[in-house]
């Protein structure tokens, strides 16, 4: 049983009995997809909402919600998942600091990320079955391909399984 670690603006797909994890999600969002019949799970660690922020045509797809989510679907399909069976879960999108005034807008990137991921999933017709998003704390998440359970750990909080 192997655990694949996904870094910031990266993605990964695993098959039962493996799991995929990302550490310390702050304002970023971890979007996971799961095919229950094939027991295939995937995760993308999205950093920013929109490719409108990308410079030039050659960019890292996993960095943005609107490119990273469709790209993860394609990767899942290449692993043998059926796109019609995919269900999504997501975690992250916190606002780590609050400073008020004009500085606040750059710190609200978390909720914009969550919104953009939701929009991308809805656009692809993939149901969001559970999420643990927002708040002011960081999250470490693991998706188990065996069960499709997404486990969320945060400092000073009880472990959450969704």
């Amino acid at each position: 049983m192997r655990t694949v670690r996904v870094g910031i603006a990266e993605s990964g797909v695993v098959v039962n009995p493996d799991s995929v994890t990302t550490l310390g999600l702050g304002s970023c969002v971890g979007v996971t997809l799961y095919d229950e019949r094939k027991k295939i799970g995937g995760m993308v660690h999205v950093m920013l909402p929109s490719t409108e922020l990308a410079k030039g045509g050659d960019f890292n797809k996993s960095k943005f919600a609107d490119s990273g989510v469709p790209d993860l679907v394609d990767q899942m399909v290449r692993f043998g998942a059926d796109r019609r069976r995919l269900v999504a879960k997501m975690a992250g999108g916190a606002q780590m600091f609050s400073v008020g005034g004009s500085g606040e807008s750059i710190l609200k990137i978390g909720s914009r990320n969550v919104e953009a991921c939701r929009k991308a999933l809805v656009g692809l017709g993939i149901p969001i079955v559970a999420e643990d998003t927002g708040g002011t704390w960081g999250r470490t998440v693991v998706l188990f391909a065996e069960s499709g359970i997404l486990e969320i750990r945060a400092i000073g909080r009880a472990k959450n399984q969704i």
Partner: protein
Amino acid sequence: MDLRDFSNLQLDAMREVGNIGAGNAATALSVMLSRTVDMAVPKAELVSIYELSEYYGDPLTEVAAVFVRSDGDFSCSLIFFQAEEDAQALVDLMLMQQMGMGPEGVPDEMRDSVLTEVGNIILSSFLNAVNVLIGGAHSISVPGVAHDMMGSVLQVVASIFGQSGEHALIVDTTLAVGDLDRNVSGKIVLLPDPGSLEILFGKLQVL
């Protein structure tokens, strides 16, 4: 400007900005604690935004961090962060020095308020020195504080720089309180807005 086009002279200038800011911050901390405060030689580096969360070590390390935004001629964000144990030791020192209070019975909210204020004074002192250097005006936000995984805190930095490219310009230095049984230190990290660098370099005549 594209961060990759930085010249060595410009990185040197950023280091000097860090030096002047951190020097003033170290003095402010030293006055508050009535102790010596040592300052490491500042670094100025371009770091990939993808490597940021592990740049200072294990991303799961628990840290306390104070964040401020500064808007003005030289707009930037600043973070003062420490290992959680160091932050609590610093709060103990401050309570004892300023109020003659031992660590017992002080509510957590008050400890957090002390920590936020120490961070605020350190970062404001840093910014004041930089703005005096360049003859600029600035306004500083109220401080935000977080106790969390280092990786989550540094992700804020990555997402700020990620909006304009693939690299972050990091100017950092370490302050360490002297004459103690245990090491109490913290890092000041200056994160200039990409758009503000040309103004800064213009004023420093290294454009």
